[in-house]
């Protein structure tokens, strides 16, 4: 009964993936009109391409910054909302927190371009209000990447919040209350009870989020196109630009394959962990 699902995936995903491998060994270039087999030369080219390595490093900064801050803000929010006893207030605040996730990601990205706008963006008005100079966030080669990251963080914090909040609600209150009666402070409870109990969920959330963030495309592409210059270029926009701006399909495919291999490593780690967890659960 898996056959229909598998045949669809085979035809629409696995075969195109193999085609991508095939393309990565050719100098397929629409503008030059070449299409020959060139062996590993595309891959050698990647090794000498500084733009590629800079994109990888930016990608690492992007993933690290986004999931790190997502986690801290999401956890903070979850802990605070968890403390609210009034059911109505708790529900209202949860709804407010989830709102950013209701925006279509691409529209959130466009809309944040307005927020970052130098003349009338709400962020610069805030800065101006406190007497600082207005900043052209997305036009600055030092700040553009971080500005995009912040948008990503803002849009996906609700995700982290919901996941961690669900985890917190599954922790028995008795353990925490017992510790509090014994005189444990808020931080002690967090450090020795809450976090250790949340650990499996935190791990799953961080893994899923980093796999998803690693392949981000829309925020960067819509907000900066990878620019100014190359200053916010990450792997996915680098591939897209190489393929659909410079029409070097062969070279772009080989970069895509490298990205695929890195992502595979992450996902295999994750799957091994999940399978182990399932086994433990079924043993219980």
């Amino acid at each position, binding site marked *: 009964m898996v056959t*229909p699902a598998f045949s669809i995936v085979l035809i*629409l995903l696995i075969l195109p993936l193999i085609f991508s491998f095939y393309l990565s060994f050719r100098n397929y270039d629409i503008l030059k009109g070449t299409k020959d087999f060139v062996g590993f030369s595309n891959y050698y080219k990647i090794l000498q391409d500084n733009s590629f390595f800079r994109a990888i490093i930016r990608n690492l900064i992007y993933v690290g910054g986004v999931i790190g801050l997502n986690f801290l803000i999401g956890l903070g929010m979850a802990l605070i909302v968890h403390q609210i006893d009034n059911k109505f207030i708790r529900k209202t605040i949860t709804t407010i927190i989830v709102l950013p996730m209701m925006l279509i990601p691409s*529209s959130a990205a466009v809309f944040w371009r307005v927020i970052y706008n130098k003349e009338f963006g709400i962020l610069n008005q805030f800065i101006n209000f406190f007497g600082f100079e207005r900043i052209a966030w997305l036009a600055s080669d030092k700040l553009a990447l971080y500005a995009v990251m912040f948008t990503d963080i803002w849009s996906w914090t609700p995700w982290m919040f919901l996941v961690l909040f669900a985890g917190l609600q599954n922790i028995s209150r008795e353990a925490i209350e017992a510790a509090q009666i014994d005189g444990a402070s808020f931080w002690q409870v967090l450090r020795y009870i809450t976090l250790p109990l949340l650990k499996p969920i935190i791990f799953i959330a961080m893994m899923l989020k980093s796999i998803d963030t690693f392949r981000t495309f829309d925020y960067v592409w819509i907000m900066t196109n990878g620019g100014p210059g190359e200053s916010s270029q990450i792997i996915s926009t680098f591939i897209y630009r190489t393929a*659909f701006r410079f029409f070097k399909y062969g070279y772009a495919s080989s970069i895509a394959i490298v990205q695929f291999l890195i992502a595979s490593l992450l996902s295999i780690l994750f799957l091994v962990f999940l399978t182990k967890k399932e086994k433990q659960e079924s043993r219980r």
Partner: protein
Amino acid sequence: MIKKVFVFINKGLFVFLVFIIIIWSLLPIYSLVLISITSDPGNFSTKLFEVPNKITLKHYWVILLNKNEWIWQYLVNSIIIATVVTVVVLIVSILAGYSFSRLRNFTSTLFFNLFLFIRMIPMITLIIPYYIIIARFSLLDTRLGIILAHIPWGIPLGIWLMKGFFDEVPSELEEAAEIDGASTARIIVQIMLPIVAPGIAVTGIFVFIGSYIEYLFALTLSRTFAITLPIRIAGYSSLHLIRYEQMAAATIIGAFFMVILIVFAQKYIVRGLTYGAIKG
């Protein structure tokens, strides 16, 4: 006394933090709404906390009723594409999810993990072959082209969620039906489907959303006719005339559909968001 002061400060800090959370989520959205209801183009929200003196719903009427500007065509594209994708994905993943839930042998686990793995492949890896293949079959700028690109990415999510819902149904039920002589097809259709109906609805909603908000494939595989809502909204800022007010209004209308869908799936939202890895 000191303890009382401490408690008071703690309470104050707590309320302050809740306030910060509300600002964090709502301030950008407040500014979005403000832009969408400001009357003069290019002159909006010049003062941060000042509601514009002329509030108008003009921009909403323009994108909903003005024939040259309306977003219906894009919204309809998005809904048609997402609906077809959802139906196809549901059919195959109900079958696959059921068998993954009941068969626990090596091959089954291997295939299940293969589907999970597929969900994590960077979409950009496939964009070049998709573009070339779909252009070869003259399916560029058609809804079918985008549908074909979306389907394989919905299947892992569908299977993952459906397996979880089937796992919750005790197998004694089918064993009893089997003893009474029911065939496998009949067990699925008459016994399992009614029980997991809510799960099918929830799975459908998440698959639908995944296709509804998808950007990369829809962007690359469309030109004019097959443009979907996310592409249209992102396009407001790259046209010659930047129409922020319409962009804001379209964003809110697009979000409105998301809210409706999510409200129905509320109870299972964490499960849907984590592909079933966490059963909240």
